[in-house]
């Protein structure tokens, strides 16, 4: 589904160069649920932006759903974002003056989908997240968890192959966070590939694989438990005497 090979991304200003991604290589297979973790400034968000075609990269190869995206025009990247990727953000990013229905409608509109098909997809997505009866509510009338569920409905309404979630539970309490994770797992079980950036070890543990990123480099790519065991062993070996 997603294959990056030696991808590098450098942010340049007049004074400094910041290497956000260095020879970043990663493969996520179709249908996987992958978490990406790492300290602040490690390049997680840059990875997500590059993976989501929101930013270009400087060197390397990136194939998304079998297609080399490095030479795509801006329009083609937009089309690919619209058709193949669903985004879920930490701060929900709903449009405040559109009701729930219209928020979910946004990506479908840009796909120039017919009204009947849009209506059917929106209803289905909102039903799935348990908000089918609140289509006319405004975002401000919903709790944080409900808003994030709307964002999830928006992400899945277009039936994308890949969902990129950036700290989707970061602004939620633990109960709501668990509900959102349950929902993401449910979506993954339906065949959608999910890449989740998170600081939360609990959430990372629920993914099939965890990618650990430090200084723009993939340090490890293994199931969370195995990586933690390796970390603990390493810590034990280094203990004095």
């Amino acid at each position, binding site marked *: 589904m997603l294959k990056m090979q030696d991808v590098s991304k450098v942010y340049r200003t007049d004074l400094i160069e910041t290497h956000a991604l260095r020879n970043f290589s990663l493969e996520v297979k179709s249908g996987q649920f992958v978490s990406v973790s790492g300290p602040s400034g490690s390049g997680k968000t840059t990875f997500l*932006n590059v993976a*989501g075609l*929101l*930013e270009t990269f400087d060197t390397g190869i990136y194939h998304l759903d079998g297609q080399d995206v490095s030479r795509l025009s*801006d*329009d083609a990247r*937009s*089309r690919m*974002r*619209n*058709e193949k990727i669903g*985004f879920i*953000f930490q*701060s929900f*990013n709903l*449009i405040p*003056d*559109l009701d729930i229905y219209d928020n979910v409608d*946004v*990506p479908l*509109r*840009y*796909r*120039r989908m017919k009204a009947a098909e849009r209506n059917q997809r929106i209803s289905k997505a909102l039903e799935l997240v348990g908000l089918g009866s609140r289509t006319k509510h405004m975002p401000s009338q919903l709790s944080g968890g409900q808003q994030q569920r709307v964002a999830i409905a*928006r992400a899945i309404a*277009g039936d994308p192959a890949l969902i990129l979630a950036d700290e989707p539970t970061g602004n939620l309490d633990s109960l709501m966070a668990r509900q959102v994770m349950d929902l993401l797992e449910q979506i993954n079980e339906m065949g959608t590939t999910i890449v989740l950036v998170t600081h939360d070890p609990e959430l990372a543990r629920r993914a099939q694989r965890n990618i650990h990123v430090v200084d723009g480099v993939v340090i490890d790519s293994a199931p969370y438990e195995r990586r933690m065991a390796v970390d603990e062993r390493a810590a034990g070996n280094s203990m004095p005497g």
Partner: protein
Amino acid sequence: MLSYYLRLASKSFRRTPGLTALMVCAIALGIGACIVTLTVYHAMAGNPIWWKNNVLYAVTMDSWDPARPFDPDNPSLAPDQLTYRDATYLMTSSIPKHKAIMTQLLGMLNGAPGQTAPIPVMTRATTGDFFPMFDVPFEYGGGWDAAADRGPEPVIVLSRAENEKLFGGSDSVGRTILWNGRQFRIVGVLGDWQPVPRFYDVVNNPFASPEDAYIPFSWGPTLQELPAGPSSGWGSTPVNNYQQFVNAEDVWIEMWVELPTAASRARMLAFMNSYWAAQRRNGRFQRPLNNHLTNVGDWLKVNHVVSNDNSILLRLAFAFLAVCLINTVGILLAKFLRRSGITGLLRALGASRSQVFYQHLVEVAVVATLGAAVGLLMGIIGLKAVQHLYSAASALDAGSTNYPALTHFDPIGIGWALALAAVSTVAAGLYPAWTIGRLPPSRYLKSQ
């Protein structure tokens, strides 16, 4: 997508009603100012007989003082009127399809049913071709023929307003009326005819209404009526009576000819030049050859019918519109950039640059349309205010200046102003819409 963009635009306006109102007001003010100045300018600068622009010609010959030009500021210009001697000779030419000489006389009308006191009327003494040459519309009857000119026959044409005043608007053709105490037979009543500017007589006030009465030109000399308009003369010949006046080097007659072809124009000019040469041999026309046939548009220009003040005012109005538009661009940019987070989100959700661009352009177009609509309203109110403001001035110059016609709501001119304003607003909005479309989505997602 257009209806969707319109919906988004209306939501955007509701989100920031103050900014939206500010933009609409800025555009409306600029457009309103432009409509008022353009309407007045268009009325003043327009050619009211444009369809005959290249067939109607004012006739001028330089019969002026050999020692100094007629207009020291424009030495190349011939006098704007002709002497009686020259005008009556040129009228003998059979080259023009139509030809007319004319001057203004002051008359008193009396003898209408129920009329208790004479009414002063500005009268145009002219020849019969005046009416067909200038496509003058008639409500009743018509003009007069060459025989009536030669007579002269006591025939008179009244304006619609005068006929309304004297005969209650009824068909007065065939009835008689006294003009300066002499009985004249009414042969025609004009339809609605308000050429602005009054191109055929720029020597008098070019923005005055057309005259209320028309009689054959020969009645002036026959009744020895001196012209009411300006006459200019040179030389030392004493002018103590009417005969001396018509024989003097005084210019007081305007002449127009209709020459439909280039050949007829060349022949007319040759006729004038040959007359000039003959007169020069007899001691007249001592200035260099300076005979002209000037079409209507050029005639209005050379006589500075539209003053520089009006042109400056027009430029100022457009500069004001430009300032309003620049302010609108600034507000649009601020508004769009403030919403850059949402734009970044739309890009992330798959909106292409062009879709974001068009979406914002539709918003600009809605602002432009609203601004144009409010501007139109402001323009109409402004024109009414100008009319009201000048009604006092109109009373002062005894209503001779046709202010209502100058500030008349001109749909074509206003259509142009609105189209210009809408196009320029959308053009001004291109930059903010383009800028917002170029924003990298990832940078602005964080600000959402």
